[in-house]
């Protein structure tokens, strides 16, 4: 299984720009069973998880235009859609969002940025897989909501600082563009 080598950003772009159903089915094949695990570990019943997966992947298709490979890896985008859907399903509260940034001003994507974001996603997944089981499970449990209010040590050797720095620089560029216009 060459899961590691698949460029999911490119597959997602085929969905976004070409409305490519085969590409979409490939994304579904890869992410749906993983999303189902994540949702069940976060407390959803199997049937609720299954419904939620359908909603998440439908959002992926219908809001494909919002996918910006310069900003994040596909897995990041899918994660935020799934998290938001889960909050809406389970909590029935409003979900306060930060003010959205007007990223789409920039029509021509910068290929170096696209590559950097996808590569970071791959490196982060690899680093998480390489962690000792105990540490990895702690991070996973934080995402499932199993850890209550305890400080979570994020100094785990994961390359989060690199990702943060890239996003920070992109935000600086966007801010200076916003003040120019």
């Amino acid at each position, binding site marked *: 299984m060459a899961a590691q080598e698949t460029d999911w950003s490119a597959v997602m772009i085929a969905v976004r720009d070409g409305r490519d159903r085969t590409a*979409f089915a490939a994304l579904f094949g890869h992410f749906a*069973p*993983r999303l189902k695990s994540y949702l069940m570990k976060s407390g959803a019943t199997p049937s609720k998880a299954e419904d939620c997966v359908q909603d998440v992947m439908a959002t992926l298709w219908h809001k494909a235009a919002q996918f910006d490979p310069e900003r994040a890896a596909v897995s990041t985008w*899918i994660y935020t859609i799934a998290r938001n859907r889960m909050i809406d399903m389970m909590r029935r509260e*409003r979900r306060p969002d930060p003010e959205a940034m007007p990223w789409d001003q920039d029509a021509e994507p910068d290929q170096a940025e696209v590559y950097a974001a996808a590569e970071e996603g791959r490196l982060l997944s690899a680093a*998480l897989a390489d962690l000792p089981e105990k540490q990895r499970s702690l991070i996973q449990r*934080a995402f499932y909501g199993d850890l209550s209010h305890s400080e979570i040590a994020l100094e785990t050797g994961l390359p989060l600082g690199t*990702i943060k720095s890239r*996003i920070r620089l992109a935000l600086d560029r966007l801010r200076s563009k916003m003040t120019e216009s």
Partner: protein
Amino acid sequence: MTTCSSIRHHLNDALLMGYASGHLSEAFGLVVATHVTLCDDCRARLESLEALGGAVIESEQETPVSTEALARMMARLDVPVVAAPPIARRKSSLPAPVAAYVGGDLGSVKWRPVGGGVRQAILPTGSQATARLLHIPAGQAVPDHGHRGTELTLVLRGAFRDATDRFGPGDLEIADEDLSHKPVAEAGEDCICLAATDAPLRFLGIIPRLMQPLFRI
């Protein structure tokens, strides 16, 4: 909304992680979303944690979906979705997440006096924690209080000081049970804060304590 470049007091990892993982109460989530709106550094930290969420998804074992799931999925692609009306970007003196709860500008906030010239407005959130706007007149103090849980105070306008430090626009004070403090608004400008508590405040003076149930602080 412009960001505040002078922010010195930021979100901690636990709050960012709680928000990134979708497990914060609505009131605390509102404070996090508002700070992130004002602070690009915390926005970048939040988005890197969301990337970690993506890596967690990638790390999952595969739980098989039902046999008809893919067919059901593909059939759904042609079902048109009713697009939600785009959220009108209002120019507001309040950060967008707060404006959404207030339903407009600072002018539309329904203030109630809580004593000492201080006014507050409870925002409608889920009951796990309470969010409110505080208006503290320049030079005035919020009654001395401690809390049973955590209290988050985010400055939207003006500044306050307490025993720990000075807090200006965009700064977030995270106060736990041990901190009994008396925030005083700086002279010159009224201070407006977004505050959230996950347990009722404990006022130390007898009169404010009697007022507590009435004002839901």
